[in-house]
C-alpha cells in the first residue's frame, strides 16, 4: 500500500478515470474526499463498498465545479475535517470535438470554465492548506491532446495545454514549500469520453501507436498513485504521458 494514512481530494469521481483513481487510491490505503457534481444512490453504494473493502474513510462531496460559491462551501467542509491534505487530484473535465472554424464561443468558455478555471481556483484553496503543512502533491489530469494538437481538438486541447502550463508554474512557485505539482497526459483511454470520438479516428491512431490498444482507466490511476506517493518525492513540474506510445 503506497498511500497508507494519506488524505486526498479527487474531483470527478463518478465515472471513467476519476472512478478508477478513487478505487486505486482506496485500495492503496488513502482516505478520500470524493468529489462529484451530483448525488446518486449508485455512487453512495460504491463509496460504502470501497470504504468497507479497504478500511478507509471516503467522504462524498457534491458540488458543481463551475460554481465558485459551491466550491467554496465544499472547501469549507474539507477544512472542518481538520486533517492534513496530502494530495489533490484535479480530474473532473469535459470534452469537446469540433473543427477550429466550427468551435463556438459559448463552448470555448464552457470547456475552459470546467477544464481550467475550476481546477485553478480549487488548487488555490487547497494549496493554501498545503503551504501551511509544508507538503503536498498536486496532480492534474491533462491530455496528450494538450501536447500534440490533434485535429478537432483546438478547444479541448488548448484547455489541457493551459492546465499543463499552470502545473509547471505551481511547481515553480510552491516547490519551496515542499509541494510537488505534476500532470498526467492520458492518450486514448477506455471511458465515455473516448466514445465521443469517431471509430476510424481511434483505430487510425492505434495503428501508429506502440502498444496497439486503448488504455484502461486503472492504468492512468496507477500513475496518479505513483505521483501522489513518496515514490515520486523528487518529481515535480513534469507532464507524464500515459499513452501506450502514441505517435
Amino acid at each position: 500500500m503506497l498511500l497508507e494514512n494519506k488524505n486526498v481530494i479527487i474531483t470527478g469521481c463518478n465515472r471513467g478515470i476519476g472512478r478508477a483513481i478513487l478505487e486505486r487510491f482506496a485500495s492503496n490505503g488513502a482516505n478520500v474526499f470524493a468529489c462529484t457534481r451530483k448525488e446518486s444512490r449508485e455512487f453512495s453504494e460504491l463509496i460504502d463498498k470501497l470504504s468497507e473493502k479497504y478500511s478507509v474513510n471516503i467522504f462524498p462531496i457534491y458540488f458543481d465545479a463551475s460554481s465558485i460559491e459551491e466550491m467554496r462551501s465544499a472547501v469549507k467542509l474539507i477544512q472542518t475535517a481538520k486533517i492534513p491534505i496530502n494530495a489533490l487530484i484535479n480530474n473532473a473535465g469535459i470534452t469537446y470535438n469540433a473543427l477550429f472554424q466550427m468551435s463556438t464561443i459559448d463552448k470555448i468558455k464552457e470547456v475552459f470554465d470546467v477544464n481550467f478555471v475550476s481546477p485553478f481556483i480549487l488548487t488555490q484553496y487547497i494549496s493554501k492548506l498545503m503551504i501551511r503543512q509544508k507538503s503536498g502533491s498536486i496532480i492534474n489530469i491533462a491530455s496528450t491532446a494538450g501536447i500534440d494538437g490533434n485535429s478537432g481538438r483546438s478547444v479541448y486541447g488548448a484547455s489541457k495545454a493551459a492546465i499543463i502550463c499552470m502545473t509547471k508554474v505551481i511547481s515553480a512557485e510552491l516547490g519551496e514549500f515542499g509541494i510537488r505539482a505534476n500532470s498526467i497526459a492520458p492518450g486514448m483511454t477506455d471511458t465515455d469520453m473516448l466514445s465521443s470520438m469517431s471509430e476510424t479516428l481511434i483505430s487510425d491512431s492505434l495503428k501508429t501507436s506502440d502498444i496497439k490498444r486503448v488504455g484502461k482507466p486503472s492504468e492512468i490511476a496507477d500513475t496518479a498513485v505513483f505521483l501522489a506517493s513518496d515514490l515520486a518525492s523528487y518529481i515535480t513540474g513534469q507532464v507524464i504521458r500515459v499513452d501506450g506510445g502514441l505517435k
Partner: protein
Amino acid sequence: MTSNSKLLKGKTAIITGCLKGIGRATMDLFAQNGADIFACCQFESEEFKHHIEVLSKDTCVLIYPLYFDLCDSEQIKTAIKFIRSAKRNIDVLVNIAGMTQDALFHMTTIDQLKKIFEVNFFSQIMFTQYVTKLMLQNKTGSVINISSISAIDGNMGQLSYSSSKAAIIGATKTMSIELAPYGIRVNALAPGVIKTDMTANLPIDILDKQLGKIKLKYFGFPLEVASSILFLASDMSSYITGQIIRIDGGMQ
C-alpha cells in the same frame, strides 16, 4: 517506505552498475519489493558480496552477482550465458552502469568522446540486444535506461556525457517502437543532480548554482531515482512506453 507493498513479486530483474549510487539503491529497493536479481558489477568486492548476502536473506529473494566489464563483448556473452543457464523469465532490465568525465567542448579529445560513448552507449545497446532477445520469448518485459537532464538541457562542460545520454534517449524511443509488438516497454529516466560519487567531486560553487535552480531546494537521493525505476519496472506503468521522465526536483 514500500515494505508492505511488493510491487515486483515473482519478477526477475537484471540491474547493471549495482556496486554503488543509484544502482545499489535500485538493487536494494527491488529486493525489498520481491524481485529476484541478477546484480551486475564490473569488479568483485568483499563488501558487495557481504551486502547481497544480507540483503537476500533479509528480503527472501535470490540475488545472483555477475562480475563483468560491459565494454568487453566477450565478457558480455559469458554473462548472458550464465543468465540463460538460470532458465528464468527476465521481466526487467535496468541499465545503470555509466561514467562521467567533464571537459569543455573545445577541450574534449576524440579518445574521451569514444570512451564515454563506449561505456554509456555502445555497451548498453549491445547488452540490451542480448537481454531483450531473452524477453522476446515471454512476450513481456520492461527496459529502463538512465539518461540525464543534461541530455535535454545541455550543460556546460559536459559535451561528451550529455551527448552520450542524448543518444540513450533516441535509442529508448526507437526500441519502444520496435519492441512493443513483443510486449516490451522501454522508458528512460533523466535524473537531475543526485547525491552520488558522480556529483561528489563537483566544485562547491557549481553545486550552489545548481541548488538555486532546484525548486524543491535539495539534491536528490539515489533512493528517489530508484523509486521511479521501481514504478517503471512494475505493472503500475503498463501503459507507459517510449517516455523520458525527468526526476530533477523541478529544475529551471
